């Protein structure tokens, strides 16, 4: 990565941070309903991995903490925020919500809300890529706790047996909702679990985007070169609760403080300041421009967007006028 790339990534990560913080406020203002799972603290994971891949070309799938992954794939942040507002202009037309961001044009294949559900879906996308002969790969981002689902084991086994081009990324933020990984998981080093399926894997610091990028590059190259699946574990931390309905009482202040010192945005900012690629003032200007964009463009766009038409509540359940429903054109 060049310094310009890193400056761009700093802006992207800071944007993701401010975007999510604004989601929090909108939730408190009751502009956003339902469940809301926020990403602050984990920004280097999605950005580092996807920077090493080809966002918009590779197929990406994840769980319900999905806003930032979609934006990094190329989704318009306005359409993502509008989805959270439940508007017709939302990327999923207000039918999905926070946990179901979709942007197929940018090959963001969705956020799914059954923990572990995307593991086999990602393997299936990889199977499709292989059948069609493309150079894309499938990338599946999920948390550490998803690895305790049967789908993890079933999907990794099949991906390995059939040598599918899929990269499994575990964003290990140490908690499955409110249960710490050592209370739920026999083998806490998640990357070791891939050994059982003969899949190469690695575990690196998920807070330092340079480290994530280098590890992801190796992983992506492996998968894209046809050597089969790969698993990458990124050690990270979420600064907020699991969702907005989470009191966060299960974590001690010391732990939060320690991880607070390893903020992925600050790590990159300070590194760029040390390298004289950016000044503190420029950073402040960047931050203000981001906040202004969110406040003056994204939020008004969402507020002024139309609600879905209730007359269309049954639209999108089944295909419209599929000729084969009537047995074709015979």
């Amino acid at each position: 990565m060049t310094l310009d790339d890193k400056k761009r990534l700093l802006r992207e990560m800071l944007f993701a941070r401010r975007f999510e913080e604004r989601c929090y406020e909108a939730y408190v203002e009751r502009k956003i309903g339902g469940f809301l799972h926020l990403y602050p603290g984990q920004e280097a994971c999605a950005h580092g991995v996807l920077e090493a891949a080809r966002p918009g070309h590779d197929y990406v799938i994840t769980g319900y903490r999905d806003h930032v992954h979609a934006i990094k794939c190329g989704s318009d942040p306005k359409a993502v925020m509008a989805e959270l507002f439940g508007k017709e202009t939302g990327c999923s037309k207000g039918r999905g919500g926070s946990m179901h961001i979709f942007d197929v044009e940018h090959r963001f294949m969705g956020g799914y809300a059954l923990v572990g559900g995307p593991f086999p879906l990602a393997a299936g996308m990889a199977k499709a890529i292989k059948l069609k002969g493309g150079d894309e790969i499938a990338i599946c981002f999920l948390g550490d706790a998803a690895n305790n689902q049967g789908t993890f084991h079933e999907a990794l086994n099949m991906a390995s047996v059939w040598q599918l081009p899929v990269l499994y990324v575990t964003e290990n933020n140490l908690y499955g909702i409110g249960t710490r990984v050592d209370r739920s998981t026999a083998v806490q080093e998640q990357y070791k679990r891939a050994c059982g399926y003969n899949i190469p894997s690695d575990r690196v610091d998920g807070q330092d985007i340079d480290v994530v990028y280098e590890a992801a590059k190796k992983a992506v190259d492996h998968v894209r070169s046809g050597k089969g699946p790969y698993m990458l574990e990124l050690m990270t931390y979420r600064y907020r609760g699991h969702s907005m309905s989470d009191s966060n009482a299960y974590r001690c202040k010391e732990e939060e403080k320690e991880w607070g010192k390893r903020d992925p945005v600050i790590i990159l900012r300070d590194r760029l300041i040390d390298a004289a690629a950016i000044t503190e003032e420029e950073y402040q200007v960047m931050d203000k421009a981001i906040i202004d964009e969110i406040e003056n463009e994204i939020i008004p766009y969402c507020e002024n967007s139309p609600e879905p038409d209730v007359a269309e509540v049954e639209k999108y359940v089944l295909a419209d006028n599929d000729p084969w429903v009537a047995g074709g054109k015979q």
Partner: protein
Amino acid sequence: MAELMYWEAIRRAHDEEMARDPLVICMGEDIGLVGGTYKATTGLYDKYGPERVIDTPIAEGGYTGLGVGASFLGVRPIIEIMSVNFAWLAMDQMFNSAAKVRYMSGGQLTSPVVFRSPGGCAHQLGAQHSARMEKVFMGIAGLRVVTPSNPRQAYGLLKSAVRCDDPVFINEHELMYNMKGEVPDAEYFHPLEGSEVTRPGKDITLFAYNISVHWCIQAAETLAKEGIDCEIIDLYSLAPLDRAGIAASVRKTHRAIIVEEAEAPVGVGSEVMAIINEECFFELDAAPVRVSARNVPIPYNRGLEKASLPNPNDVVQAVRKMLGK
């Protein structure tokens, strides 16, 4: 018109669709080298190779999810679940992924996948291999459910299901794979919605699907000798059910019995009754009844097993009772 067995008809549909479109694949347990427990994919492994005829691990949730994921990119997988009982393990992916993805993506993604599986009760397979699960599938928005009662339907429904952009569950039957029937020599696509009049009649309608159509045919023959003229409606589409077809027959005969292999609660029978109430209640000359299985896990003992399932004689008795004969 050739006479084919039910399994041969299914195999022919696979073969034609796979020959036409390289993105049609099939997958499941022992469907490749072995050719399928019920032979429905015999010979396809040799013809199309292991990349398209996939022997999966015994991991229903996993391989079903894999097929659904492949369908997101335009692949059209035909996923065989060896016994419908095992579909419980696959339902998260069938319902939460395949059936909902079009809706929750605002129409961006679709899952053109076909699930096919033998349902029903065979002989002494016990509680965990004798499920009738159509009632579960037919209540899920976004999923089509069809159930062939003969080789022609088995062939034509699979042909249409593969090409349809919606996920389709095809409920076959353990006991019907060796049933013979006429299948058109030319390519044939059966509608995925609607119903068929298997036997026209004027006195009473027997609503049936899959194996119960055959019980009704037997019952109707017995009753015809007594001067009772039964109409049989084959509900090959369980989701959506054919509201217009159900109402049309009740308007004609004014009496309805629903015959199902499944237990009565929350089933095809209760749904058909609800439709009759909503569409044509005042056409009825008698309260509709169900001929259903007893509400028990299917027992192993042959005598108990038979006692828990309906049969043609139960249909005959129900008709006589309704007509006061």
